């Protein structure tokens, strides 16, 4: 059974890159979300093994989505996509319980190894 991944990013391009690299490495993308609201809804619906969550998204940002997801599932495995300059947000997210974070721009391997480690823990 491959690990089931949910991708949440408002940029289609970003999701495409992530999807490509993850699928090539045996992960299954069970869903994609382009807003925070959608991410929460899809998490609840699909119950993925891990979710990759962009911080900057319209309607509801990634941090708020993260909070809601952790309310639904306190064991949720969440990886946050952030940018330089968001250090304080990241620390807040770590305190809230994310498993790892990646800093944009990132190489595809980065995402892969962060997911691998987070799923192994």
């Amino acid at each position, binding site marked *: 059974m491959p690990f089931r991944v949910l991708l949440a990013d408002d940029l289609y391009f970003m999701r495409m890159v992530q999807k490509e690299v993850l699928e090539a490495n045996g992960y299954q993308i069970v869903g994609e979300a382009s807003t925070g609201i959608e991410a929460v809804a899809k998490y609840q619906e699909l119950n993925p093994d891990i979710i990759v969550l962009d911080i900057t998204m319209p309607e509801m940002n990634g941090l708020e989505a993260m909070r809601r997801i952790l309310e639904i599932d306190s064991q949720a495995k969440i990886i946050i996509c952030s940018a330089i300059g968001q250090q*304080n947000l990241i620390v807040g997210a770590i305190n809230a319980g994310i498993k790892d*974070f990646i800093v944009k721009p990132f190489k595809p391997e980065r995402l892969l190894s962060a997911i691998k*480690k987070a799923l192994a823990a």
Partner: protein
Amino acid sequence: MTFSGLDEQKLLRAFLEESEELLEKLNDNLLQLERDTSNPDSINEIFRLTHSLKSESALLGFVRLSGIAHRLEDVFDGIRSGTVSLSRPLMDAIFSASDLIHEIIARISIGKSDEEIDSQSVIRELKQLAGLAPEIGTEGYGAAAPDRSERADEGGLVLGDFEYSQIMEALERGEKIYELTVMVSEEVELKYPRAYLVFNNLEMIANVIQTVPNMTVPQEDQLYRQLVVLLSSELDEEEIYSKACSVDLIERLELEVWDKTSIQDAVSASRGEETARAVAAAQTPSASRIEGTSIRVGTNKLNEIWQLVGELTIFKAQLSQLHDNVARQKGNESIKGEVERASDHLERITTEMQQAIMGTRMVPIAVLFNKFPRLVRDLSRKLGKNVDLEIHGKETEIDRTIVEVLSDPLTHIIRNSLDHGLEGPEDRRAAEKEEVGHIMISAHQQGGQVVIEIADDGRGLDVDKIRQKAGIASEVSDEEVIQTIFSPGFSTKEDVTDLSGRGVGMDIVATRIREELKGEVEVRSEPGESTLIRILLPLTLTILHSLVISCAGYYYAIPVQDIDETVRVLEEEIFKNKGSEVYSYEGNEMPLLRLDSVLIGPSEDQQNRRREHNGVVVEQRRGRVCLLVDELVEEEDLVIKPISELLNHRRLFSGVSVLGDGKIIFILDTARIMEIIETGGFDAI
């Protein structure tokens, strides 16, 4: 104040920087409290502020300062709990205490100590008015700040009593003591959050006794390349290791279990440095001081980055020229496309970077405006005038270097408004005006400029008096007459110092705004009703959107903000008028200047003159002038650098910049050119 080992200067600087903000808040809250003496928010905030001031100054050994702050803290604690009532005299005493604090900090900032300051009378007054029990003993709080010695092992764990007892308790519970060393990959950006992730994971399964560097208060990111964590846990090595390992981008992980002897060694080694922990604590500001999402960065560092972005801008321009050249050549279509994309990309990044860095230079004008309520309050009391101050647009952002220069002129204008502009209560009643005078200060952004207005509903300027004193002919309009209060030397003229309205020093104010800030200032006035002073300032002094022109084989730049329009000028539209050339444009005449004759020298060969010219109509407060140039080249954002006096013959240029191809370009000072035209300075050419 002596404690060896700590960077005293650094601490002091941090203290001064922070106290500035603190004093401002204190001031604001005091003013708010005066308006509404039962406002619990203000009371709590002042209590908090005085408390921080007390502790910080005590830490640095400023005994007098902390003494006053301590007393204020007591007073506000009393007010908070209802044991002290806030009377008018008490409020005044509080204000004088706050003034003394200002004064002491000003002394400290120029390197003096606070010891010569007499704080006793202020403290006595506060105590008396607040009905606090006289205190026995020293006035200073924490006067005997603990002596601190240098930390022995930089980067290593330092165990004090607290750590020791934690270790002992953990051992009694049957837990093991681990020392975990984590190396974060060198190339990782944001090392602190990454180290924090490890730390957080460990905290969930173990008891973290100590970390080096400290994790609760972020320090310089680079310090978190290595994180050492001392922890106790009942889990075995394997489990601790795997938890720490679940984080990506960790280069190396070492886990060591401490046995009895290593614990004893560590403890006794640390004991030798018993005070070391105190230092470690002192080096770490308390958590309450960390302000959300901001860090302090020295202005010089920002300036350095700014300069680099300037260089980058130049390089970007070079690249885009290269791209233009490549595009003109035949063949190599695929490379052309790539160069174009790369060039576009760089362009976008550079522009964004420029804006982002520009953002760091910008501060809300509130930093300046916030001091005015206090100024107006004090001055209006002194003058026995009743004044209501309104402030708008505090959030308007402006370059911090502009703020620094603007502070004095603006203060002067407001003082003038209070002093000379607004009438006293009796005069106002006699003039059938509301007894309370109004002053309004506002700021907003308009195009590439910041507009600041200072308005009052006072007596206005006495145009006739100005006209008479300055000896201005009657055909000149009132509007123009009142602008002469800004003319250099105006206020030094005899008898004009007491012009009803104002006038004192307004010429100096105007000079600073015009010359140092490249801004404009104008005044409007309704006699007997109001005065409005409007200041126009550039958003920043370092980047100038300019029109590049060529003239006699050289490039020059004219700031776009000075340009009214560009025109085609036919030779037959140019006339001679009293020896100077004028250009007849849409029925109006304006002075005309052949830029080449000014910059290079007169050209004798009339035959060579073209029949048609490119003209740039420049508008300044003094009026308009048409500059004839060879070519209009392009508009560009230029990074302005100061120009050496030696190169600046007749001060025709306001600065110098470098174009994409590395050519030096001079920026024309249109105000100066206008001035020379007016004084007939070019006629001899």
